[in-house]
């Protein structure tokens, strides 16, 4: 509902199962808690544990949250083309779309939203951090949409990363930094950067 | 009511069983075993749905009645909630081998430390003599009026043979309550099934072949004879599994 938009941020994250969609959402949710906001996190659930589609809805608000369902997101983080295609029409005017330009080779059609295209998968691979493209996209989200201190970010990660993977926190922080840096390189203005499909060979 | 020489763990109440029914004898053997082991004060019984649904009237023990076939699950809950207690389920053939097969098999597979007394009289007694999973081929019942047709309804379930194939259970034995000699063997087996639980050995089931003159359409005497001539050959007596024996052997 529009009335709540001032104090409420609705985020939709979507991609393939296994890309860390739910984890990315959890991290944003934990960050919201650290900022003293009310938070809901709602995953899609079903038989598609790996490889299918996955999405999750996160709401951060200064008000009590009613429905945890996000139908008109302020921010869409799309990690593959089907997700961008499916959800971009729903993004609020004036909202933001962040997507992985390594996997999505079509620019969003919307002109009334900020678009951030990061070649997240390629950047992750180049940095030797396969599988952390979600954190690179998070870097963009944190730059534009949710401001956390480095200490808060570390705390949010500590809350989200399971104990047996605690050694990966530094890598996550590094990936987030890459995302922020990439966005800074692109300048302060909203940009649309699409990559041309690379031909094999 | 005159004072009888009943076991301490049993009440003086007269049972409601038909003349010639061997439930009474089997109750008595259970009571004897509980007395012999001195476990009356911590023993809890689970009655089934079937002729022995009122078993709680005859034992001087804390008891409950399970839904049809669910006695092994109820016994599991009781035992897990209070491992110090001694828990037994008393079940008939319809209860254990038909509607409650899953509960019996899985309690055995878990080697749940409980004791099951499985009374097999090859017929549904309480409801008036319908075909049971253990009714013999050709056996006349209310729902197999021309005799159990194995082409139509398959062959009987041999519970001891089946359960003894599982790695889980500690003790599986079949006995009969039709002769003094067999009753003495039954007494030994039932006591062992309780002792196993006291010693923490695990799941013990004793199948007791039992008579049902009323629903078999036989006199009590002929019923006992039929057990010898027809039932026992189909359901051979003996110990089908005994993990403690294996311990002794090795």
């Amino acid at each position: 509902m529009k009335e709540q938009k001032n104090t409420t941020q609705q985020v939709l994250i979507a991609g393939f199962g296994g890309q860390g969609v739910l984890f990315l959402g959890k991290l944003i949710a934990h960050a919201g808690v650290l900022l003293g906001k009310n938070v809901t996190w709602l995953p899609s659930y079903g038989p598609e544990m790996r490889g299918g589609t996955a999405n999750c809805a996160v709401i951060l608000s200064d008000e009590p949250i009613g429905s945890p369902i996000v139908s008109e997101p302020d921010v869409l983080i799309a990690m593959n083309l089907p997700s961008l295609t499916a959800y971009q029409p729903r993004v609020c005017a004036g909202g933001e779309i962040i997507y992985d330009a390594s996997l999505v080779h079509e620019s969003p059609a919307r002109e009334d939203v900020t678009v951030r295209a990061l070649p997240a998968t390629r950047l992750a691979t180049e940095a030797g951090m396969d599988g952390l493209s979600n954190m690179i996209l998070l870097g963009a989200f944190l730059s534009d949409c949710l401001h956390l201190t480095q200490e808060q970010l570390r705390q949010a990660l500590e809350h989200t990363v399971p104990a047996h993977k605690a050694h990966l926190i530094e890598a996550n922080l590094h990936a987030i930094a890459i995302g922020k840096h990439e966005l800074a390189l692109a300048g302060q203005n909203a940009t649309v950067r699409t990559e041309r499909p690379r031909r094999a060979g | 009511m005159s004072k009888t020489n009943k076991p301490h763990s049993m009440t003086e109440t007269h049972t409601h069983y038909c003349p010639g029914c061997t439930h009474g004898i089997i109750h008595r053997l259970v009571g004897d075993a509980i007395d012999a082991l001195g476990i009356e004060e911590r023993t809890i019984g689970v009655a089934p749905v079937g002729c022995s649904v009122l078993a709680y009237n005859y034992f001087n023990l804390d008891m409950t009645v399970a839904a049809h076939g669910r006695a092994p699950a109820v016994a599991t809950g009781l035992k897990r909630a209070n491992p110090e207690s001694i828990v037994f389920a008393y079940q008939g053939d319809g209860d254990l081998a038909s509607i409650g097969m899953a509960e019996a098999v899985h309690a055995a597979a878990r080697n749940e430390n409980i004791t099951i007394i499985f009374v097999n009289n090859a017929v549904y007694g309480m409801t008036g003599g319908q075909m049971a999973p253990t009714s013999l081929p050709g056996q006349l019942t209310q729902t197999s009026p021309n005799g159990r047709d194995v082409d139509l309804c398959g062959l009987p379930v041999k519970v001891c043979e089946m359960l003894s194939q599982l790695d889980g259970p500690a003790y599986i034995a079949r006995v009969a309550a039709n002769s003094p000699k067999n009753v003495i063997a039954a007494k030994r087996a039932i006591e062992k099934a309780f002792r196993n639980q006291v010693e923490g050995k695990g799941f013990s089931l004793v199948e007791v072949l039992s008579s049902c003159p009323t629903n078999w359409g036989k006199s009590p005497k002929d019923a006992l004879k039929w057990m010898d001539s027809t039932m026992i050959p189909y359901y051979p007596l003996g110990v089908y599994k005994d993990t403690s024996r294996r311990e002794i052997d090795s």
Partner: protein
Amino acid sequence: MQETILMKGNEALAEAAILAGCRHYFGYPITPQTEIGAYLSKRMPEVGGVFLQAESEIAAIHMVYGASCAGKRAMTSSSSPGISLKSEGLSYLAGSDLPALVVNVQRAGPGLGGIQPSQSDYMQATRGGGHGDFRNIVLAPASVQEMASLTQRGFDLADEYRMTAMILSDGTIGQMMEQVTLETPVPKLVEKPWALTGTGGKREKNIVTSLYLSPKELEEKNLTRFARYKLVEERETDYEAFCMEDAEICLIAYGISARVSRNAVSAARAKGIRAGMIRPITLWPFPSAALKQAAKTVKHFLSVEMSMGQMMTDIELAVRCTRPVTLVSHVGGVIPTPEEVLLAIERAAEEAAV
């Protein structure tokens, strides 16, 4: 421990059960409540409790029956198809006057249905859900916080009234994460002199049974039980009133539907429509008195539910059909949107103005 943490509804419920002193869980996997079993399989051994994955939902509830016979706080959890299987056990628990906590994280039916959230087990839950005359106390959490707090209340109520308390949740509330403060309550532990603990040679034997072959005796048992149910209705009915002071349009909704309705009521208020909501926290007993009272000033009721008017029946009974009641529903796993609920409010407001 008063820390506010982020937790899934299913996990908050599981941890709250442990904090409420439950040490016996028996269950069988089914989506969307599997986190409850998975969580307790780790936690129960840590607190010296019992987690046992049963061979079926039927076996699980009869294991609960056994543990409850022994006087222990015991629970099981499942989702709609599994609750149908447990209906036998629900009836036996009621007939034997045994306390138990049963959780239904509802999914869409009938049959295998789907795995998305639903509220279509309303009748099954509030009317007992098995054969015979009986009731369960049905608690309907609308947040992760309530998944925890109502679980703890459920154990206390079950013990106090010797009956089943059912948590009637749904896939959304079970799967979502939200802030929760886990309280360590002082469980209202009641004496259970009826429990099967062995006579210890110190008392007469106890018998727990639902079998009464004498009609007179069985009638007496039923009447005594219903006298107890009456007490539950008088003392334990609970609901939340939202924007009801001057409400002309009143939404009735529970669980996830109440969350959606809350947005719609706020939006309607912003448009100057006097909308409000009564959110039942107990579905049985249903807050009929509150609705009857509201009917004095409310012009139109909306039953917002993810079922085909199952709850609407209770609303109509409560207001004795003195006011129109409109069904706003989706089924099959579809969740109503705040926008369409708002639309229904606007329509009702127009009708009321005519």
